[in-house]
């Protein structure tokens, strides 16, 4: 069953547009949503949550159309926006008391358990929490109302490595029994290498690729060679950098014919992102 299905979502702004964005997230998995700043991650997430009106396309959550069943589906969705704070001068307790009234399946016992587990002090104000604690508070809220789909916009940005690693462990535990699915956007690609099952990559409002993580990484090759070898593959490279030793470039695996001396390796997510961004820069020049 699909937890989330985004089909042909298009949204035009002045100077930016989401073009035919489509991807699917299977129930019980973690999908990393990557892209550079301004690539369209938050716009896509806002489209999913029906916070903005899309020009065309469709979003389905748990098989139901999001626009038609928005209120029911929001009972099943937990979301957190990194970097946006709400009512920071209020205590955790006050916020929770207000928020829980909106959810039919709110479970106080679950909430207490998560507070203990995340070491959150109810009497603290939101402004007193560290970035990591804020994300955990958001998660505790989402999980206590029985959210089946977590949509997290940059939850790990601004966290120190220890807090990030801790949070990623939490994500993996959550999806372990196959009921909860997570879509989280980030530009910290190492987080995804640790915990994502699927990767969706967006660049300049378009989905470049959406696939299982290893398949995603293996569909590209990072080439290393000298300048004469560059001439052989130049046309087919997504983009490349020249240095005093030769060149490094990214190529689609299907376009690469293993040959003599060009060294080929599986690129990291970061490298894929960088070379695509470079291509974008070049086409815009």
């Amino acid at each position, binding site marked *: 069953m699909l937890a989330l299905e985004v089909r042909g979502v298009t949204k035009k702004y002045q100077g930016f547009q989401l073009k035919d964005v489509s991807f699917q997230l299977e129930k019980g998995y973690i999908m990393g949503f990557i892209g550079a700043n301004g690539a369209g991650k938050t716009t896509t997430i806002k489209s999913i949550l029906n*916070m903005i009106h899309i020009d065309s396309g469709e979003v389905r959550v748990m098989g139901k159309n999001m626009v038609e069943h928005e209120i029911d589906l929001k009972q099943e969705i937990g*979301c957190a926006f990194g970097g946006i704070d709400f009512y920071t001068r209020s205590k955790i307790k006050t*916020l929770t008391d207000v928020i829980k009234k909106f959810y039919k399946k709110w479970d106080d016992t679950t909430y207490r358990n998560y507070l203990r587990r995340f070491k959150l002090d109810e009497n603290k104000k939101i402004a007193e929490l560290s970035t990591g604690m804020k994300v955990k508070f958001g998660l505790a809220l989402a999980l206590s109302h029985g959210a089946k789909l977590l949509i997290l916009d940059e939850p790990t940005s601004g966290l120190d490595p220890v807090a990030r690693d801790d949070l990623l462990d939490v994500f993996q535990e959550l999806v372990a029994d196959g009921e909860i699915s997570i879509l989280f956007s980030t530009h910290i690609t190492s987080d995804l290498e640790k915990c994502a099952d699927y990767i969706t990559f967006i660049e300049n409002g378009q989905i470049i690729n959406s696939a299982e993580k290893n398949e995603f990484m293996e569909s590209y090759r990072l080439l290393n060679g000298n300048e004469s070898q560059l001439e052989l593959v130049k046309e087919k490279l997504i983009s490349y950098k020249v240095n005093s030793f030769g060149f490094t470039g990214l190529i689609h695996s299907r376009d690469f014919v293993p040959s003599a001396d060009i060294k080929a390796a599986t690129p990291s997510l970061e490298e894929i992102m960088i070379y695509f961004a470079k291509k974008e820069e070049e086409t815009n020049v």
Partner: protein
Amino acid sequence: MYNLVMKDLKLGVSPIFLIMPLLTGALMLIPGWIYFLVPLYFCWITVPNVFAGFKAQNDLIFTTMMPVTKQDMVKARVAVIVILEILHIAIAMIFGAITLRLYPDLIYYFFAPYMGFWGLCLAMLAIFNLIFIPMYYKTAYKYGKAAFASIAAAMLFAGIAQWQGIGNSYVADIFIGAGADNTALQLSILIAGIVIFVAFTAIAYRIGVKRFLKVEAQ
């Protein structure tokens, strides 16, 4: 809807604005003052402060993430404004009644706090709502222009009404002359004020919803 109203009252509206009606209402004890200023303090102080709070605390995104309809979001916000307005008027009315007993022989130059005057105040707040709510829901977070326009309109209404109350002997007679003792007349002006208040606020709500449905949360 109820949950959204409670959300605004617990998180968005600072308790000071729930107590404020006691302070502004007490201004009614000033003998023979321009009493229109009393409900206007709500427009000048409470509205900009409360809406600045909603904007600063990202209330729009916060509320949009919850399982609530956009209609209910507007309905609840309008309800909160109306609750505050009624608090201001009701408490001012009590202080007004005290004033009438405290200084029974006072000669009024401006409107006296009889029931008819409160009908005029409600009409003034009706005009305020009719302009503020639809303008605010163009973005659902920017409140400056909406507050300026609606406060200006409310003041204009108050100014013209008070000017008539001084310059026009017929109007003066109704509000501070012989008409002041005519309970039926006073009560019917108050009821007319209530009707205008309800009607204008309902229209403002409808236009607000229509505009808010087109708003993209940011």
